[in-house]
């Protein structure tokens, strides 16, 4: 059986067995669709909050047995042992799991990109002066405009809505690649479950970081977004590089992994 047939067999099986495929986009997208044209700050915060779902689903899709004791049956049909003892090549198995994971994760950002295309430009009030200045300095084409109420803090960002959706996709993709590497890395450890939970908790508390930062500084969420906007092409090249290298590493790792 050639690798592409194996790949599609595994992919189809996961799609049929895992209903998250249909739930995730709603979970990821719904709040963002409401907020996209209204509040950039809140939108970025919601995206960061959603990151923990990437970690959680990464674990559930790649190695669900991490969440259960080895003797438990609940993950038998989706666990690595089940797949590895079928007639599949190890590398194909890693690829099929990864492909399913990435598609699932990227479904929401892609939906958001598509949603933003009909009205790509963003006009947003940025109250903080430092944030406004950082935005004007970094985001290509951004400018101050006078709003209907005579606002002097209204910023216009050409294709800003698309940019936010793109930033969402970038963050999810990079985190998904990192999660995949992390899962295969910790897999042999007897403490893997705890390491994984530690990662989920770490990512879950990311939105709280700004609570400890200075009030007159640019929140890290916005800072990263502006940085991404200023270096879009480089960011995407780095993300795709990380994705490919991570994938190759995972395939090599899995080939030597004992289950």
């Amino acid at each position, binding site marked *: *059986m050639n690798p592409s047939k194996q790949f599609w067999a595994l992919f189809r099986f996961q799609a*049929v067995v895992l209903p998250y495929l249909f739930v995730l986009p709603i979970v990821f997208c719904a709040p963002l669709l409401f907020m996209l044209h209204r509040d950039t700050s809140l939108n970025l915060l919601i995206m960061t909050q959603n990151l923990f779902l990437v970690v959680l689903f990464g674990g559930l899709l790649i190695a669900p047995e991490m969440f259960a004791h080895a003797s438990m049956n609940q993950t*038998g*049909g989706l666990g690595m*042992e*089940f797949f590895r*003892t*079928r*007639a599949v090549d*190890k590398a194909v198995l890693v690829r099929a799991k990864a492909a399913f994971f990435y598609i699932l994760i990227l479904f929401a950002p892609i939906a958001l990109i598509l949603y933003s295309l009909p009205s790509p430009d963003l006009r947003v009030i940025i109250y903080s002066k430092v944030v406004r200045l950082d935005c004007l300095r970094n985001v290509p084409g951004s400018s101050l405009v006078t709003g209907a109420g005579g606002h002097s803090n209204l910023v216009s960002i050409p294709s800003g809505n698309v940019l936010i959706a793109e930033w969402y996709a970038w963050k999810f993709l990079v985190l998904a690649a990192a999660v995949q590497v992390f899962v295969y890395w910790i897999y042999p450890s007897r403490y893997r479950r705890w390491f994984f939970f530690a990662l989920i908790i770490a990512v879950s508390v990311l939105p709280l970081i700004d609570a400890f930062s200075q009030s007159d500084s640019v929140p890290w969420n916005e800072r990263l977004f502006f940085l991404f906007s200023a270096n879009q092409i480089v960011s995407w090249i780095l993300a795709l590089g990380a994705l490919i290298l991570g994938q190759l590493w995972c395939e090599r790792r899995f080939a030597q992994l004992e289950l």
Partner: protein
Amino acid sequence: MNEPPIQIQNACRSFDGVPVIKNLSVSIKAGSIYGFLGRNGAGKTTTIRMLAGLIRPDAGTVRVSGNDPFGIGAEERQRLGYMSEKAVIAPFATVRTVLNLGRWLYPSWNSALVDSLLAKYGLSPGKRLTTLSQGNQRILGFIMAIAPRPSVLLLDEPAANLDVVARREVLDDILELIRDCGCTVLFSTHILSDVERVADEIGILANGTLRVSEPLDSLKDSIRQVRFFGFRNGAPKTDVPGSFRTVRSRDDVTVTMRINSGPTPDELAEQWSCRHESRVLNLEDIFVELSRN
């Protein structure tokens, strides 16, 4: 070219520094059914997992159909059937979903056989795996392992959680498979009557060491429990070379030993100036004697 399809040589395996398999060597010839017996924690599952390519031995070699099972790909796995001790459970999956995966992955998948087995065991294809009884989950695992018509079949506790009728039917299916395609089967179990029913050869594993590995009839013929008594010069303090177990009481010594190799009971009785009586052991007795610490 007549290499045994299953071959383990001097395999050792430890977990967290605790040896589980110690210098295990076993060779199973083509077309035979090998019953793997042992107490809980004896190393049966570890051995089967090594053969399935899920783990590697720390030392020694493991070969299945001439290949290192840890490194084999899809092509070789077409001919290696494996039924885990864990059930096949996936949320939202039905029996049909799981069987479809087998159909997609194995060109040799025997759909007619699957249909007949589903009907035989009363498994409905549309039933969710989470609603299946543990016994039916085992049967599904068995069907997944047997349907591609593998040349080597590894079954880890295939009859666990099955009722008596289903257990007997599973064993009959194993026999039928052998008749049809000359498949080599290794199965582990605690149920001795299963082994007596189907196995050509058995291996008894105790504390990671293979105590015996030979045809069932030969095993029953060769192992006896011999009681030596009436010592004129006192009971001997040394064990009989090659014996499996020696129990000493005040007036007699009971030895579980082979009678077809090493010193015979008659020779020992003459040497120790005593009398003796032998007891024929059934498989359960042999298993208990050989498995005791």
